């Protein structure tokens, strides 16, 4: 408050002596002092580890038992190893990237379709839905539950002796328990995608609603007066004007999706089963970390950093262009 007051004072009174102006400006130093703790924490716990990770990615550095191998310069050795075929004939990082993208897409398609429909319904001045606040809260609720709790719930429901299997056997749909979680790649992927969908569609709905509400209401009204159908309004007014927000939400969701970890990790107990078909990039990173292989884990982290960095840059550019 004091700060604002003094600035106002400075602005309102040009004839004040110079001293006064300097005093007003000197308040700015408090701003810097207040952000020092953040930067200290950032330097120690974010930037320093990031630089270290980058260095490790060029070193042979791992522990086996109580013995430490390295750190020894390995140039691009870790990256070459990362993009070399494993014993099972698969390049694990490519497999992990593909898995991550497939599971993200499976969830995201429904997430965006349904969120879009809900957002349009909730903001429509024509429908005037009642109790939208209640529904918004309910849709958003899953996002408040920890992903881990959610994964455990799905594990409990879908394992071979869980209620879903009991029901299926009781109703005569299956004569033997079906292993939804660790036998069929598409079944496990569907479970992961479903969980991510339930966790995130409420969040997307709220963001898209904010976007639609930002569109000038008079456009909708005049379109309706001209006799435009709801479909026409949606495709010719809502969608084009919502595009910037939609792309932003899509790309942030993609970045979040690339870092997919907790849900598939807990559902498959870290294994990425079946046949590594649900192993995401961060799960692969974690496999190297739990093996105390700092060099390879560093290389995976840098690859992930490059991909997300590129996508973030896209988002940045988009927002800037909108401002211009």
């Amino acid at each position, binding site marked *: 408050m004091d700060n604002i007051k003094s600035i106002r004072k400075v602005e309102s009174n040009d004839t004040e002596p110079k001293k006064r102006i300097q005093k007003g400006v000197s308040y700015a130093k408090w701003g810097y002092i207040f952000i020092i703790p953040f930067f200290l924490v950032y330097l120690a716990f974010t930037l320093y580890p990031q630089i270290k990770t980058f260095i490790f990615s060029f070193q042979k550095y*791992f522990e*086996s*038992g*109580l013995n430490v*191998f390295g750190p020894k310069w390995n140039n691009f050795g870790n990256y070459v190893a990362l993009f070399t075929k*494993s*014993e*099972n*004939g*698969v390049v*694990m990082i490519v497999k992990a990237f593909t898995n991550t993208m497939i599971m993200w897409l499976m969830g995201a398609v429904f997430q965006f379709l349904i969120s879009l429909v809900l957002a349009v319904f909730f903001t429509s001045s024509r429908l005037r839905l009642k109790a939208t606040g209640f529904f918004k809260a309910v849709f958003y609720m899953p996002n408040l539950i920890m992903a881990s709790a959610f994964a455990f719930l799905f594990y409990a429901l879908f*394992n*071979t*002796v869980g209620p879903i299997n009991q029901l299926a056997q009781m109703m005569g749909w299956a004569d033997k*328990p079906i*292993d939804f979680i*660790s*036998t*069929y*790649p598409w079944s496990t992927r569907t479970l992961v995608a479903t969980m991510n969908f339930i966790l995130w569609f409420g969040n997307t709905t709220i963001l898209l609603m904010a976007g639609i509400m930002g569109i000038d209401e008079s456009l909708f009204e005049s379109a309706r007066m001209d006799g435009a159908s709801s479909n026409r309004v949606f495709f010719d007014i809502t969608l084009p004007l919502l595009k910037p927000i939609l792309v932003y939400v899509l790309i942030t969701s993609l970045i979040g999706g690339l870092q997919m970890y907790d849900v598939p990790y807990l559902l498959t107990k870290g*294994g990425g*089963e*079946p*046949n*590594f078909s649900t192993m995401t990039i961060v799960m692969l990173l974690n*496999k*190297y970390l*739990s*093996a105390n*292989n700092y060099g*390879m884990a560093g290389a995976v982290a840098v690859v992930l950093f490059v991909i997300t960095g590129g996508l973030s840059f896209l988002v940045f550019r988009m927002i800037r262009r909108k401002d211009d």
Partner: protein
Amino acid sequence: MKKLFLGLFAALAALTLVGCRKTPAKSDSKVFHIMAWNEEFKGFFEKYVCDERAKFVEAAEKKDDSLKPKEYHYDGKLVKWTIVPSEGGQYQKSLDQHLKANETASDDEKVDMFLAEADYILKYSNSKYTTPIKDLGVYNLSNTYEYTSQVASDSKGVVKGVSFQCCPAGVIYRRSIAKAVFGTDDPAKVQEKISNWDKFNAVAADMKAKGYYMTSSFAETYRAFSNNVTQPWVNDDLKLQFDPQIEAWMAQAENFIKNEYTLTAGIWEDGCTNEMFATGKTFCWFGPAWYYNFCMGNAQDETKGCFGDWAVCEGPAYYYWGGTWLMGAAGGNDDYLVGKCMNSFINDKDVCKALVKNEGQFSNNQKANKEVAAEYEKEGTGNAFLGGQNDTKFYLDLAKRIQIKGMTIYDQYCNEGLQKAFGEFLKGAVATKADAIANFKTQLHIDCPEIVFE
């Protein structure tokens, strides 16, 4: 003159004795520091060896924890525990840090003794961070079971740890199913039917014919094979190798799944343990004495279980499962106390007998086990869970015959990794056996990059 000679001779003799049996010196430190991952051993230590043990026994008898002293001592030194749960490798991580810093740590922080499990004991016994038990003052291993020393020996055969328990394992089977299929539930007669793997496999077919499963997990028999390998998982050139015993397990597991003699559940999964309820259709499980209380909760369930409908026999192979070893940390202050504690748990017959009688353990002292078994025999008492069978007597002989060969520090990764990867093949998630083994190697390469494959 004669006296002088005698005196000299005695002095010389004493010197030589001291020379070959150096007793660790006492230190001035005031703390005896032990690291463990749970409270099991702590309970035994408090009740049977610490200075204030009488008070702990009293507290246990009266079931009143408030009687337990808050602080207690061992040979006058304050006992300090650092307990880190083993989940996610936490215990080993913390232990590694402590051991590496032990030489330079302050007196109160130095670790004197720590506990280790068979799965990873070699990591410590093969390192410079543990002290040979001879240097701790433990010379007499004649009462213990041989395999407990084999497990705790380093690559040169130097014994680095002592186990306070012995975990011979057998086949724990349902009496009612044995009666239905064999016409008898007598352990000796059932043993005849499954005394080797060929017979065991043949019985599995009989079980199937009568509507039962032989086991309820494809991995149930794994340890009975893997404990009997003749070559290590990884050889001196760090090359991975498959022992014929492991091949035999894979063949059996494949056969059992194909013929529906067993289920695709892992040994810790509900799909396996739910079969222990009275309604279960599974004949047997593989496990040691601790398995009854630790893993067979469903069988002991008051309403749905089948308490007393069980018995144990040797089965097709001798093996052990589990166990906890005490190890002396290099750089610790109180080597003589570590040795004293180890000696109590293997050579003090009273302590060992108490472990068997009061704590449901099978001790690492042959005489103590024998005496307790004889007492039970005389009283005609046995284990109620096993329908009155005297299992202490049963384990006596079994424990002596267990032999361990070819352990490596990679065993945990190899054993668990292979079971997991092969399980995927058996479930149909992976198309061929070769694919499963390739996946196993892929995971192993991530965990232990130094291992090479053919």
